[in-house]
């Protein structure tokens, strides 16, 4: 909300500066996002009220006037381009030396041969409006020479206040003034609820059909209303508050809403059928054309204001076009009602229509303030539009009565960690009056203060900076990473060491087990079941950016159908790497080794992969990306991190190292192409036990020597015993066992 300081200071007397006010509000009440300085700069004493003594056509220019203006101690000759005034007018004058809003500093100079000593001001020249069609005409009661700043807000500071949704009372200038008075021990000017004298006693037919939706409906009737422009000060305030000026009556309703937080609406009384107004639910098939020109189809959930025949407005949100106040209006019915928040919110969402009014109602406005808002608007309509106030109605249901809430002083201490002996005084300043061991909640806080803890918060707001900085005193402490968290770090490190950079890709993909009923886009419509496709996309982007040596990994969740209410969420680790299956395998080996696991590998059929270069492990898959996925050769892998952690050994138990020398040999076997190296190695290990200490595959060879459809696989083996040095005979016996076993199982032939 935009809050002009001059307006705020109408309601609160304090020495505090704007900056101090902004800072204090930010801490205790609502965040002030900024202070905007508006208006003119420089010496304000050079702006005066002037009386036009003479005004004649400029002798050398048809479109200019040559005037003599009394500005107090002297009379100035001023050339002026406007014609909306003549001798006798009271105007605003900038003297030579003054700087007007567009930054121009005035001096004495000749215009078409005549000396001009200053400027008669239009509203845009002092940033009070955008109108440049004529100069501002001031109240004739003002004396020549009166400092203009006492008449018009030549300089304004505007606070940008962002109140939280629970504090509907802060969506009003008076509500903020109340907080400032409390914060600075200032004087809050009492709310003026006085009404002007009634000039008539007309009966008004006002009723409420739905007291839940509309607990209160105040209506005032005005006759002989002169619709016109609002005075400059009023337009300036609205403008600074971010509301467009329209006409005096409409401006008054907006002014009272901004001042007190309770929105109002004005109807052209003569357009109402009946004439009567009722707050009721819309009926099937009804519609209303709102002020924005849109025809709105209504249903029974919409609260409307209706006359005898039809809805004339969406209650609290926007009035109807057919009954709006126009230039020709002479009789005005003013509505100052109260509407319940949830219904307003629903209707405003359904019609995608948010207004200053709906924004306030949906937060819950104090029904007791409707009377004060009606009073303020009534005083202003009578004064500014020369109207006669001739009729009034105030229909209300059972308005909620202020609750009394108990507050134990020590509860404040327990929650704040600070004793606040003056808590009663603090609460009194924001309207909570002590009653017994409790406090009566003011009507404007009835919605957000309902419990003792809410009163504690009220006290805390005013002691925010006094609360000390301490740490909890603890009896026990239990901070450590879980095993899963530790091993996630291990996996991260392994992949970073293998040259992979970590990516964060989106959770959403085009297809998955769980589709979003309202997707973000067609590409982000479902929860992913695998990470690799997202990484392939990231790799593709990196290729497009011209990056080289691309290697990306990610650790994140996938979401699989569980059959239950919630998806089966599992953590995966996946990677995509420029190169091929060897690079993918290398990364997978690193991850497994880091977790002290050995992968059980077999041929796989993952559809992202090249079918001849696809492998599966018990925790996932790896291989070469299918050539249609990405141009060039790429490796990829995806493993279930939860399964890896589950399978990883809790601890490593020492395996004895032999203190006797080992015999190292290389054994090469020729086998059929389709015998996997891992199968040979497993058989070799089994046959070599217990004296086989170690065995690895170190070479693969194909060629004429081994024959078509066959290959040679070479193993490096170490023989040895824990008890003694093996004799040559013993070592060769182990070797023979191995050779025989591989020959009988796989038809493997030892190469000489």
């Amino acid at each position: 909300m935009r809050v002009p300081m001059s307006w705020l200071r109408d309601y609160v007397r304090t020495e505090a500066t704007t900056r101090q006010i902004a800072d204090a509000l930010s801490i205790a009440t609502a965040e002030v996002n900024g202070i905007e300085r508006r208006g003119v700069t420089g010496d304000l004493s050079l702006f005066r009220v002037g009386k036009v003594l003479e005004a004649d056509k400029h002798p050398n220019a048809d479109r200019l006037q040559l005037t003599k203006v009394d500005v107090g101690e002297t009379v100035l000759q001023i050339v002026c381009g406007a014609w909306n005034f003549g001798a006798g007018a009271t105007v605003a004058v900038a003297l030579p030396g003054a700087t007007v809003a567009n930054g121009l500093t005035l001096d004495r100079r000749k215009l078409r041969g005549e000396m001009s000593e200053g400027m008669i001001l239009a509203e845009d020249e002092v940033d009070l409006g955008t109108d440049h069609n004529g100069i501002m005409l001031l109240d004739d009661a003002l004396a020549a020479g009166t400092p203009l700043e006492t008449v018009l807000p030549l300089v304004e500071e505007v606070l940008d206040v962002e109140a939280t949704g629970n504090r509907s009372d802060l969506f009003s200038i008076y509500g903020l003034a109340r907080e400032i008075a409390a914060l600075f021990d200032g004087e809050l000017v009492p709310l003026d609820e006085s009404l002007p004298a009634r000039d008539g006693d007309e009966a008004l037919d006002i009723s409420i059909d739905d007291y839940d939706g509309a607990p209160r409906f105040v209506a005032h009737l005005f006759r002989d209303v002169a619709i016109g422009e609002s005075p400059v000060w009023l337009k300036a305030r609205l403008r600074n508050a971010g509301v467009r000026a329209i006409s005096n009556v409409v401006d008054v309703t907006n002014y009272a809403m901004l001042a007190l937080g309770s929105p109002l609406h004005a109807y052209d009384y003569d357009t109402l059928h009946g004439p009567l107004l009722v707050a009721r639910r819309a009926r099937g098939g009804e519609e209303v054309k709102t002020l924005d020109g849109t025809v709105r189809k209504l249903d029974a959930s919409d609260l409307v204001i209706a006359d005898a025949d039809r809805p004339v407005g969406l209650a609290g949100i926007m009035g109807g076009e057919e009954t709006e106040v126009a230039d020709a209006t002479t009789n005005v019915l003013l509505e100052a009602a109260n509407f319940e928040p949830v219904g307003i919110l629903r209707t405003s969402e359904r019609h995608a229509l948010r207004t200053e009014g709906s924004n306030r109602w949906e937060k819950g406005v104090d029904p007791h303030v409707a009377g004060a808002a009606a009073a303020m608007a009534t005083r202003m309509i009578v004064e500014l539009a020369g109207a006669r106030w001739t009729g009034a109605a105030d229909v209300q249901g059972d308005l909620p009565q202020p609750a009394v809430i108990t507050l134990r002083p020590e509860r404040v201490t327990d929650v704040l960690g600070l004793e606040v002996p003056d808590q009663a005084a603090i609460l009194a300043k924001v309207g909570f009056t002590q009653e017994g061991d409790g406090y009566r909640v003011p009507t404007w806080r009835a919605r957000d203060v309902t419990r003792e803890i809410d009163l504690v918060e009220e006290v805390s707001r005013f002691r925010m900076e006094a609360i000390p900085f301490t740490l909890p005193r603890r009896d026990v402490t239990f901070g450590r990473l879980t095993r899963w968290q530790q091993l996630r770090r291990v996996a991260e490190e392994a992949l970073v060491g293998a040259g992979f950079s970590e990516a964060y890709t989106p959770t959403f993909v085009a297809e998955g087990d769980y589709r979003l009923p309202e997707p973000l886009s067609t590409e982000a419509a479902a929860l992913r079941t695998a990470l690799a496709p997202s990484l392939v996309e990231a790799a593709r982007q990196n290729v497009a950016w011209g990056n080289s040596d691309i290697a990306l990994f990610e650790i994140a969740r996938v979401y699989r159908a569980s059959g239950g209410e919630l998806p089966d969420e599992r953590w995966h680790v996946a990677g995509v790497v420029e190169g091929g299956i060897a690079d993918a395998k290398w990364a997978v080996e690193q991850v497994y080794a880091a977790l002290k696991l050995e992968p059980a590998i077999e041929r796989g059929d993952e559809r992202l992969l090249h079918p001849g270069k696809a492998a599966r492990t018990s925790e996932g898959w790896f291989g070469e990306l299918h050539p249609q996925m990405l141009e060039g050769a790429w490796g990829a892998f995806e493993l279930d991190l939860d399964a890896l952690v589950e399978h990883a050994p809790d601890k490593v138990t020492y395996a004895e190292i032999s203190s006797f020398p080992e015999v190292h040999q290389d054994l090469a076997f020729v086998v059929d192409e389709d015998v996997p190296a891992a199968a040979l190695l497993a058989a070799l290990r089994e046959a070599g036990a217990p004296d086989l200490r170690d065995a690895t595959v170190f070479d693969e060879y194909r060629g004429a020597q081994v024959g078509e459809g066959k290959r040679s696989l070479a193993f490096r083996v170490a023989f040895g015993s824990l008890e003694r040095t093996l004799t040559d005979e013993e070592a060769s016996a182990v070797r023979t066992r191995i050779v025989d076993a591989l020959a009988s199982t796989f038809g493997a032939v030892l190469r000489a």
Partner: protein
Amino acid sequence: MDRLAAVDWDPDTYVRDAQAALDRATTSDEVEQVAVTWLGRKSTLKLALREVRDRETGIRLNAIREEVEAAVETKRSAVEQAELRRRLETERVDVTLPAGLLGDVRSRRRGSLHPSTQVRRDVEDIFLGLGYEIVDGREVETVRYNFDALGFPDWHPSRSPRASLYVDDGTLLRTETSPAQIHKMESTRPPIYMVSIGRVYRRDTIDATHYPIFHQFEGLVIDKGITMADLKGTLQYVLRQLYGPEREVRFRTHYFPFTEPSMEPDVSCFNCGGAGCQICKHSGWIEIGGSGMVDPYLYEFVGWGPEEYTGFAFGLGIERTGQLRHAIPDLRLLWEDDLRFLRQF
């Protein structure tokens, strides 16, 4: 027609003849040969096109050209598919071999942890030092745990599908990690000292400061005698660990459904030291999250007495922390996975 006749060809059979030639081709090379013969610079069609002087003939010949081009393209892709299939069938490796025998494993420069992971680890370590547990619940939650348990009123805008990402009527992608805290409260009695870290989701339009996915770290402490002073002290400690020991921390009153009193912590701007600059929007302070005392409603929700314990909760953003620490101007950089970005960290 005369002019066409002059170059000695029959447009009516051109397409048919080209198609016949394509049908005979079985390899990519043969398809390319057909393309040269029937569409190349010296093809009868191209020569005829060069001679065209009237619009009608031009349109007709171009139609023929397009038809032949389409046929070549269809054949080309069919042959490529077949060749690819053959290649994939014949290219077969023993996947059980060690990486080094499967091909050349490139030696690579060391990779990097994503800046958000680095922040996550720092956060984990800071809270481990304070004796907290690190928890990450689940991402798809029930409305009950994501909103009801946390005291979100029915009208709260976050409940709207316009603000949150629903999976179905009763479940949604969590909008904060707090549901993990409710689960914790249901499964154990205080003392609770925990911080939940993980992905959360909101229906935001992507721009420099919004992304529908982000990461939060949210603390929850419930014990006997916990006060707002403890919350202030804890966050001051944590923020100084994250942003530097000379940082000041202030608190502003605020509103959150699940805390009462609620407040927002600000950290003094590390860029200007409080004098005001672009980063702190000239206020000297940087907003970094939300916090407050656990609303007694939550104790009742899990079946405890409302005053048996007191506690505090706070929530801060991982990405925001990373952005502030590393002066990353645009949130989207954290999700683009550009190696020129990732390798800097």
